[in-house]
């Protein structure tokens, strides 16, 4: 990832911290639940016991207890992630040295040992995000490297409907077919047609990654593989993969 992405992550991490502090900090809530801020001097934020604070540009939040009979979303547990990765990557896993990454980082990722901790921390902490980025880069690298030398496409994890020489411009249909496969396999999301905006975003990512890797030259095999590795990392770090 380049600098813009790092800046994006840093900005979001700051927002993450701000979000986590919000109910406690921010502006002091007046007892009457009235308005805070100097009138006419910039945006005002309505706070109070019954009106929790939202970011200024945050869309309205549905009261989850207001009679809507639905499930809540939850982050995958570490055990679920560990079991799922070989399914989407056809046997490939996250490794830290010779150990499975989820085992090696279990304590840090909040897996309870039922001695000093008895409840799995399913918060999406900055530490969790960092290790999931590690996981995605390592596992995708293994999968794409193996795919590159696997002649049988049905045995590949990422390049299932494309060949390493299929470029974004030369083999657009095959690229889109592969992206549809990846969205369904990784996220359980089915893409309808070629005008699915989510599919278009992934295609854009693939094209940009290939072009960036090629550095202005005609894309070759290594650049295409870098493009697929980027798509794989994006999918494994997407919220749709981590929440259900």
């Amino acid at each position, binding site marked *: 990832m380049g600098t813009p992405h790092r800046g994006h992550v840093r900005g979001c991490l700051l927002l993450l911290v701000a979000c986590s502090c919000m109910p406690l900090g921010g502006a002091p809530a007046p007892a009457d639940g009235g308005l805070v801020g100097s009138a006419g001097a910039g945006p005002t934020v309505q706070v109070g016991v019954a009106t929790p604070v939202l970011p200024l540009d945050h869309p309205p939040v549905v009261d989850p*207890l207001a009679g809507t009979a639905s499930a809540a979303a*939850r982050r995958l547990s570490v055990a679920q992630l560990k079991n799922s990765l070989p399914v989407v990557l056809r046997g490939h896993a996250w490794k830290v040295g010779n150990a499975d990454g989820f085992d090696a980082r279990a304590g840090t990722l909040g897996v309870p040992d039922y001695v000093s901790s008895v409840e799995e921390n399913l918060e999406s902490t900055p530490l969790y995000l960092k290790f999931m980025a590690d996981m995605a880069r390592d596992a995708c690298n293994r999968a794409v490297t193996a795919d590159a030398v696997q002649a049988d496409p049905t045995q590949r994890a990422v390049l299932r409907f494309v060949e390493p020489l299929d470029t974004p411009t030369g083999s657009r249909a095959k690229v889109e077919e592969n992206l549809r496969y990846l969205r369904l396999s990784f996220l359980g999301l089915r893409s309808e047609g070629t005008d699915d905006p989510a599919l278009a975003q992934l295609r854009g990512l693939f094209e940009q990654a290939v072009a960036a890797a090629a550095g202005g030259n005609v894309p070759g095999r290594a650049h295409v593989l870098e493009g697929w590795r980027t798509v794989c990392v994006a999918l494994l770090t997407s919220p749709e993969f981590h929440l259900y």
Partner: protein
Amino acid sequence: MMVRWMCLQVCLAWVLAGVAHAQQPADLRCSQPHEVDRFQLLRRLSLDLRGRVPSYEEYLALEQQPSVPASTVEAYLATDGFKAAMRRYHEAFLWPNVSNVPLAGSAPLTALELKPGGSTAYAINNNARRTLYRGAGDVDTAANGRQCGDFEQTAFDPAFPGQYRVDPNGATVRRSTVNGKTVFQEGWRWVHPYWEADPAVKVKICAFDAQEIPTATVGGKTVSCGDYTANNRRECGCGPGLKSCFGPPQKVSQVITASLREQVGRAVDRVSAGGAPYTDLVLSTRAEVNGPIATWKRDLSHNLTLGRIFARPDAAEPVPARPFTEEAWEEVDRGGLHAGVLTLPAWFLRFQTNRSRANQFRIAFECEAFEPPSQLEAPGSGSPACHADGTDLTQRCTCRYCHRQLEPLAASFGAFAEAGTTLLDAAAFPRTLASCVGSTAGLCRRFYVTDADADNPGALLPWQYADAAHPDIVSALAAGPRAQAQASIQSGAFARCAVKRMFRHLVKRDMHVLGAQAEEAALLGELATGFEQSGYALPWLVKQVVGLPQYRRVR
């Protein structure tokens, strides 16, 4: 709190999405509740019931289906993934990891380098035993090396064939004078230890420690050399194959504690995938035992220290004759007052006091937790008037708010040793022992009321308040945890709690059954009744919950 959580999820979305999702508006992630499509439903079912996402081929198989077929749920419930998922689900409230509990009464055998570059031999790592054997706690001589000395002992008392008795005054025991004190070094001998599966594997062990004398006379009684009361007998060692001594922790204690956790898992398997009613989890007298657990109970548990755990087998507890290295499991009927996981060693060692056992039972199987009162009671207030102090917590001001209920519950576990696993039968542990009043003996201080000024001095501790003033404690002691569990089942609390827990696990939020938002109270009643009528079939309950509209909608 919920707003904060949702904001975190939005942030998670932004951070995780990276380049691929940077343009996606946040309102897509804060959408209104809606039905999930069949692919997302399959993913949800697979993650909840099998612990992993579906494969691409499984998604493809849905293409021609209007929804996820009921047969898919049935198939998921029959997988090993479901068993594993149910184990994890139950571990979250059974907390079966006891790897931090020191099982070894006296110190375990420890490998020791006898001389720089010389032999490494095992010896009991206990200062008192070393002093008993060799005259000093830490022997190190230039001629022979450390502790027993680096030479092989081959001469044993011929009057006791096969016992490898070492005569400290024999010619092959080397004597030295260190700091004016005579010390003995007896050398080592080869022994095949019980923790090694390969009979060809032998280790060096200091010869005093390796003696195989079966019994010793202690206080005029003949006792096993494997019993803690014989620990001060010089002729006693670890016995044949070192069976009475804990070996290296990674090869013995850690194997046993891992087996105790697995034992709980196997009890869960019986109710999750084995067809047994869920009530067996708290009622069954049967348990599975493997070689490490059997060896621990049979041979190692007698080698105890009264200040640590007390895990001798019950008087009537069947202990299979399996060697330590036997990994296969065998079902035994423990009988008596045993009650499923509530009397498994992992439960007793994880929750070491009777109060904590009772409290965790309430939390785990009745979904109830004690909360302190909002106001303190003044001494003498209330009816009956409360006491400002005293050890009877059912009478003490403020404390009694919880303890009037907790003490009888705790008493239902009273027949089992606290910080231990043993059913304290009346023959070995009389309910009153007058000789313990004022005594400083380890057994008395561990198990009896020794203070002459206390209530009911000389009583076995759980029986201290088993009197006319506390009839509920008397009955709870006699009935045991099984009766407590049975009462919970009969009242319906057990079924309602099982439903609430499973709903929370699968729907990922609490049921709305309290206060103004109790729109799911009727559902709780229906599911609890149905669960009971199904014969407490856990798979039935799981199927019901994943079939609810709530499960198939998300916000």
